[in-house]
């Protein structure tokens, strides 16, 4: 097909033609095109449908501010909706489709909304979808959901890889237009470490789109030379395709680098990199964004920003139309006409508001045909270049609550006095709207920054260029009764803004939310100032009095995938494996995540039909002979120092100072508010040496709190802490044959009950000299020990223990069997230590010593936490032994009909099937629980539709006197 709009190669590469398709039509462009420039070259003007009214829309801008030309790129899982065609780099084989229409792009049935426009004005959601209530779920919500959003997701996992990276520099230069290049050259020549980042794939900014000269050569050639000089400097990192999207505290910036978006295939390389850039100073050279003028029917395909028309014709060699009219309130309009004429494009008319002429209407449904002025002129035009002036890109200056200030002479907001620390602004972003000024400001800002950091600025003079004419007379809106668009992306018209004002939504933040002005992917880059001007007009205020909305990062869209980086799927967080993990895998373990640990949950044997079979076998065999469980995941803290005992006395609620060497004690830890935090055992290995265990879940917080107590509360105690959770592999060996088994692996230690009784501990060796620690503690209620060896011997230890246990038919058991046995013994665990329970509720009230100062001891004495009618931890059994109990069930009296807040007596926290008792058992909190032994209650569980009769029993379901563990 012919491409009549392609005038010349511009800065594209004729030698590298690229084939692509749009809505199934095959088209051709060149290397260096964007999708937008290539579509325009192929005469494709209708590109999208608008959000609300489904009006035909075309390309409006030539950059990241694009509100209209949003398309879907690629297909299958790689489908990417809502991509701006103006920044999508063309590649061979690119597959692009339009979005947000039902039926074809040309005949969108949703365009009926355009006829309903009188009913769809600002706030119509709030006004329309109110009554009747019953309509909401059945009618309104499905309709709104179907209409919401623009593109559609592929709903498949993202096949691409995203990375995170960290960079450091003396000076970050944001933008590589004239000001940015000038700044980067100055700082680079001064030998500072510089990062210069630009969102475009071709550095140079407006130099590529205008016909200016710098140092007597074309501006784009000067930009290419400057970039080459920067690339040759070791101290400068040059980043194209990189959008700096946020200015964070202390000189930290967020940037998104698009690394393979311009390639047909990423080849497995990261598609995008989210950079965190640490800078000592920064220069913002982000340029300015042109804004339109609002007039009737100003949204037709072909109506475009004047600067974009120059960008397409000068940079890409593509004219957006064959008959171009110009509508302007400033000198840019004349420049557009001159540039187009020089390229041989017919300019059919110039409408300049400074001469009191303005456009009152346009015609052309799917592409512009004519424009009509107040002077009665009817101008034939298939493209209208509009310029309402330029708005400096101040976004990054405002990310730390800075507010921009208004300058009448350029009719624009410029960066205010409260810049993020370390930031300077140069060029158009600072309101320096001419080329020579931009080059000078960039150099001056960089020189000031590097001098401040102790570098000697380069003496090289500023590049030579002219100051072009820049005269503007503010003109915002052609008044009239037809719809005049302000925000193209959200279909917000001038009338919506007047209506918002009439209905009282006058503050700019209200205006934004009521009309949706300035929301979505373009964040109102072309619309916001125009919207403010109209609000100012409606309220009789000035624009600076009206103010701006708060700018928040990101100022340009960043994919969620880039924020996630590599942290997805299995890599969402790190995995910790126990020392016996490989052995457990070999032996049929199913694993469960406990925090980031993977623990064996049970060991499946051939022929076992479900997990209960495995767990029942493990419990039964442990209680009958001996079982082994990896308990490495419990937190371990080494506590050493002359004041270690005194320190532990303060950390635990119960006393520890008197614990003899060679003994272990159960300890209860409170928070300072008196609520239970954690429990565990602590062994005294020497006068000045203790080894503490914590629960798996609280290992980090207990250690943190202990360091707080050590450094902030009792800074002069001689005590030191080391987390040794990862240093020791630890195994519980439990059951009547535990002693006999251990005697086979422990060297030279008398394990007899007299020499090594319940709650004894010792340092010893195993297997002929391997260092170990042995603790006689029991979570299962059996005769039990925990044996610890340095973690590197953990795998060998489990194999040695299993080999030694063969004659006793030893079983490994997992966390489920561990849980069953602790419920049988009535030990509290995470379900009971849930951050809301007191020592009294757990039946441990007497453990809290009143004779010493421990964390939480004072506040644990508050009367409300010690009421007699409070909850108490008790045991439960089903009245009918065939009933299975459920955790989460609530208790009510047997004759209570209505379960509610008043009849609620407490809840079931933990349940298990006890193979020894042959029925379900539970633990739970019950009001006045200690006084209700033997009572029968309803365990009411509406979530699972269950209502079970239960009997209140002691928490110790098995061996209440503890004879087994002492034996």
């Amino acid at each position, binding site marked *: 097909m012919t491409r009549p709009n392609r005038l010349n190669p511009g800065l594209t590469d004729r030698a590298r033609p690229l084939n692509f398709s749009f809505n199934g039509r095959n088209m051709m462009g060149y290397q260096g095109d964007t999708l937008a420039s290539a579509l325009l070259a192929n005469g494709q003007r209708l590109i999208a449908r608008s959000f609300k009214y489904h009006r035909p829309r075309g390309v409006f801008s030539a950059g990241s501010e694009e509100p209209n030309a949003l398309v879907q790129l690629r297909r299958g899982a790689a489908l990417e909706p809502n991509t701006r065609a103006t920044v999508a780099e063309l590649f061979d084989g690119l597959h692009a489709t339009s979005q947000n229409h039902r039926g074809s792009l040309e005949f969108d049935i949703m365009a009926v909304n355009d006829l309903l426009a009188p009913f769809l004005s600002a706030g119509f959601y709030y006004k329309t979808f109110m009554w009747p209530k019953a309509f909401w779920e059945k009618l309104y919500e499905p309709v709104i959901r179907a209409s919401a959003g623009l593109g559609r997701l592929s709903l498949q996992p993202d096949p691409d890889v995203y990375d995170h990276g960290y960079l450091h520099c003396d000076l970050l230069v944001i933008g590589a237009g004239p000001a940015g290049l000038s700044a980067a050259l100055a700082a680079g020549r001064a030998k500072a470490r510089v990062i210069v980042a630009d969102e475009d794939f071709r550095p140079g900014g407006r130099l590529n789109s205008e016909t200016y000269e710098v140092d007597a050569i074309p501006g784009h050639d000067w930009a290419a030379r400057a970039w080459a000089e920067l690339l040759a400097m070791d101290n400068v990192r040059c980043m194209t395709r990189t959008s700096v999207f946020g200015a964070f*505290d202390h000189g930290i910036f967020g940037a998104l680098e698009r690394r393979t978006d311009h390639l047909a295939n990423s080849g497995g390389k990261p598609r995008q990199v989210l950079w965190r850039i640490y800078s000592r100073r920064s220069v913002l050279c982000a340029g300015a964004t042109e804004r339109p003028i609002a007039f009737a029917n100003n949204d037709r395909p072909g109506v475009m920003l004047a600067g974009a028309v120059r960008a397409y014709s000068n940079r890409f060699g593509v004219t957006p139309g064959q008959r171009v009219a110009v509508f302007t309130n400033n000198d840019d309009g004349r420049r557009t006409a001159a540039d187009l004429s020089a390229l041989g494009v017919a300019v059919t008319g110039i409408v300049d508001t400074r001469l009191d002429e303005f456009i009152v209407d346009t015609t052309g449904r799917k592409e512009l045909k004519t424009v009509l002025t107040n002077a009665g002129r009817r101008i034939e035009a298939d493209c209208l270049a509009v310029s309402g002036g330029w708005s400096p890109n101040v976004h990054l200056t405002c990310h730390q609550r800075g507010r921009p200030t208004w300058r009448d002479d350029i009719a624009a907001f410029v960066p205010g006095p409260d810049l993020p620390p370390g930031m300077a602004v140069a060029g158009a972003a600072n309101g320096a709207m001419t080329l020579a000024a931009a080059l000078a400001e960039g150099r001056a800002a960089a020189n000031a920054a590097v001098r401040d950091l102790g570098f000697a600025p380069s003496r090289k003079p500023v590049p030579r260029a002219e100051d072009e004419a820049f005269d503007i007379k503010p003109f915002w809106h052609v008044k009239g009764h037809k719809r005049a668009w302000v925000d193209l992306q959200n279909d917000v018209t001038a009338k919506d803004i007047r209506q918002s004002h009439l209905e009282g939504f006058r503050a700019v933040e209200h205006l934004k939310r009521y009309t949706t002005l300035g929301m979505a992917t373009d964040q109102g880059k072309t619309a916001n100032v125009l919207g403010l001007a109209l609000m100012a007009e409606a309220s009789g205020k000035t624009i600076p009095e009206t103010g701006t909305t708060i700018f928040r990062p990101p100022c340009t869209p960043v994919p969620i995938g880039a924020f996630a980086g590599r942290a997805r799927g299995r890599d969402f967080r790190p995995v910790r494996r126990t020392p016996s993990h490989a052995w457990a895998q070999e032996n049929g373990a199913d694993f469960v995540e406990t925090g980031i640990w993977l623990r064996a949950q049970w060991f499946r044997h051939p022929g076992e039909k479900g997990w209960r079979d495995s767990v029942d076998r493990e419990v039964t065999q442990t209680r009958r002979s001996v079982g082994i469980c990896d308990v490495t995941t419990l937190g371990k803290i080494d506590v050493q120092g002359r004041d270690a005992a005194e320190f532990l006395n303060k950390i635990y609620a119960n006393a520890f100072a008197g614990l003899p060497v060679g003994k272990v004690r159960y300890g209860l830890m409170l928070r300072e*508010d008196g609520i239970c935090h954690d429990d565990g055992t602590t062994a005294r290995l020497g006068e000045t040496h203790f080894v503490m265990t914590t629960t798996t879940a609280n290992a980090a917080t207990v250690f943190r709190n202990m360091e707080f107590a050590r450094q902030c509360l009792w800074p002069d105690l001689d005590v030191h802490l080391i987390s040794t959770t990862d240093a020791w592999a630890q195994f519980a060996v439990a059951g009547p044959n535990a002693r006999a088994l251990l005697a086979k692996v422990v060297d030279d230690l008398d394990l007899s009950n007299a020499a090594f009784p319940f709650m004894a501990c010792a340092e010893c060796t195993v297997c002929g000299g391997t260092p170990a620690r042995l603790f006689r503690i029991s979570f299962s209620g059996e005769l039990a020990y925990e044996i610890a060896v340095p973690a590197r011997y953990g795998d060998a230890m489990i194999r040695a223990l299993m080999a030694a246990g063969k004659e006793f038919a030893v079983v490994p058991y997992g966390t489920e069997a561990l849980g069953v046995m602790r419920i049988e013994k009535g030990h509290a665990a995470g379900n009971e230590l849930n951050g809301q329970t007191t020592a009294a509720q757990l039946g441990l009230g007497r453990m809290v010593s009143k004779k010493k100062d421990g964390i939480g001891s004072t506040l644990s004495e508050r009367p409300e936490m010690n009421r007699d009618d409070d909850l108490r931890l008790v045991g439960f059994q089903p009245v009918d032994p065939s009933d299975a109990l459920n955790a989460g069930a609530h208790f009510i009296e047997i004759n209570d009909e209505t379960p509610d807040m008043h009849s609620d007596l407490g809840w079931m926290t933990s349940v298990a099937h006890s193979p020894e008792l042959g029925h379900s058992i539970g633990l739970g909190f019950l009001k006045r629980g200690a006084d209700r032994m033997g009572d029968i209650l309803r365990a009411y569980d509406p979530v699972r539709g269950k209502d079970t009769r239960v009997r209140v029993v002691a928490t110790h379901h098995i061996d209440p006197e503890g004879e087994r563990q002492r034996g």
Partner: protein
Amino acid sequence: MIIDHPLLGPRDAAEFVYKGDAALIDRPDWQAEDAADKFHEYMYLRDNVAGEMAELWYHEHGDRSWLVVTRNTLTHKITSVELARDVARRRGRGK
């Protein structure tokens, strides 16, 4: 944010865990007449400062130092960073 650790130099705030008001160093005397009231105030009554505030930060992914960081809660400007142990001693928590 960047916290200038007195021993380790500038470190990213992501390495730290935030606790709150440095007044938590001033733990009351458990044997005082009004210990219950004092602990109640210590635990629950905090100033919500708009401006400069001394805060406790813990270098959990670092050297495990507790630090007192004086930070402006409006601007995030940090004016001083000290080891909490030194601050605690200065406030009389030593032996």
